[in-house]
């Protein structure tokens, strides 16, 4: 079991080559975001596209550059639990301030 998981890690751990690939993907996604901005899309659609793209960039950096994908789960817990709390709070605040609750 121990050997297996070690092997497993060995296999998946990104090295410089993967990092550069991911860097390129990040750059590409940013370029797409830039492009989307100039397409005359419906604002709601555009918002969702950007949210998805930004989230992907976010997850790539967190997962690979910050190594969270391969690291101890407890780090993820420490990082993502406030994230969930904050997103919820922010969403509630937006709803309140844009009078969606009246």
């Amino acid at each position, binding site marked *: 079991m121990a050997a297996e998981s070690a092997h497993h890690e060995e296999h998946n751990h990104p090295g410089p080559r993967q*990092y550069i690939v991911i*860097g390129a993907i990040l750059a590409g996604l*940013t370029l797409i975001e830039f492009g989307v901005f100039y397409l005359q899309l419906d604002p709601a659609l555009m918002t969702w596209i950007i949210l998805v793209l930004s989230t992907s*960039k976010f997850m790539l950096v967190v997962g690979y550059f910050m190594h969270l994908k391969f690291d*101890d789960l407890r780090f993820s817990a420490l990082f993502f639990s406030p*994230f969930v709390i904050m997103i919820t709070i922010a969403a509630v605040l937006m709803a309140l301030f844009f009078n969606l609750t009246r």
Partner: protein
Amino acid sequence: MQYVTGIDDHRTSTGLDNRKLLMWAFLGSDVMFFGTLIGTHLIYRNRSLSGPQEEILSIPITTVSTFVLLMSSLAMVLALAAIQRGNMGGFRFWTVVVAVFGSIFIGFQMFEFAEFAHLGLTPRTNLFGSTFLVMTGFHGAHVTVGILWMWSLVFASFKGKIHQGNALQVEIAGLYWHFVDIVWIVIFGVVYLIGAYGAENRALESVEHAARAASLI
């Protein structure tokens, strides 16, 4: 209960390093910090009574500075990979790249703020000015701290205090740097792209911006 002698005093219960755990906890806390700032900005959207608002954001320029920051993150992870393999030269090179790219980003930001002041937007102008500039200003402060940290690492490595054996130091600094980067990913997506979408005069302004930027750099 038992008393067993010879247990290593420095082991940790989780097997995780104290400092790395601290950094992750700090980043969790910083999520709340930036979340609150960004949230404040968002709930004040379109509430300014006068003065320029999102229409003055320059998407082309910020796309470039975003790209620079992303690439600094790439350099950061390459620096870490280098030092983990004992390649000190590579480590120093990439760390300097991080610091330089970070500085370029700050340069863009300073230009942006100056440009906004020129267009009549300061933190005192309106709600947009207050929330936008304080939020991005705090992000810029984080980047600045990161830049100082990078230089310290490079210098410390010349003094032999940073080496393959304590690459963890670099890893922790890297976590911080990447975090600053992802905060920017969010700000760029939500505040710039979504925020400025549909704002008038954008195209014209951007060209003007770009021209100024070109003349400045």
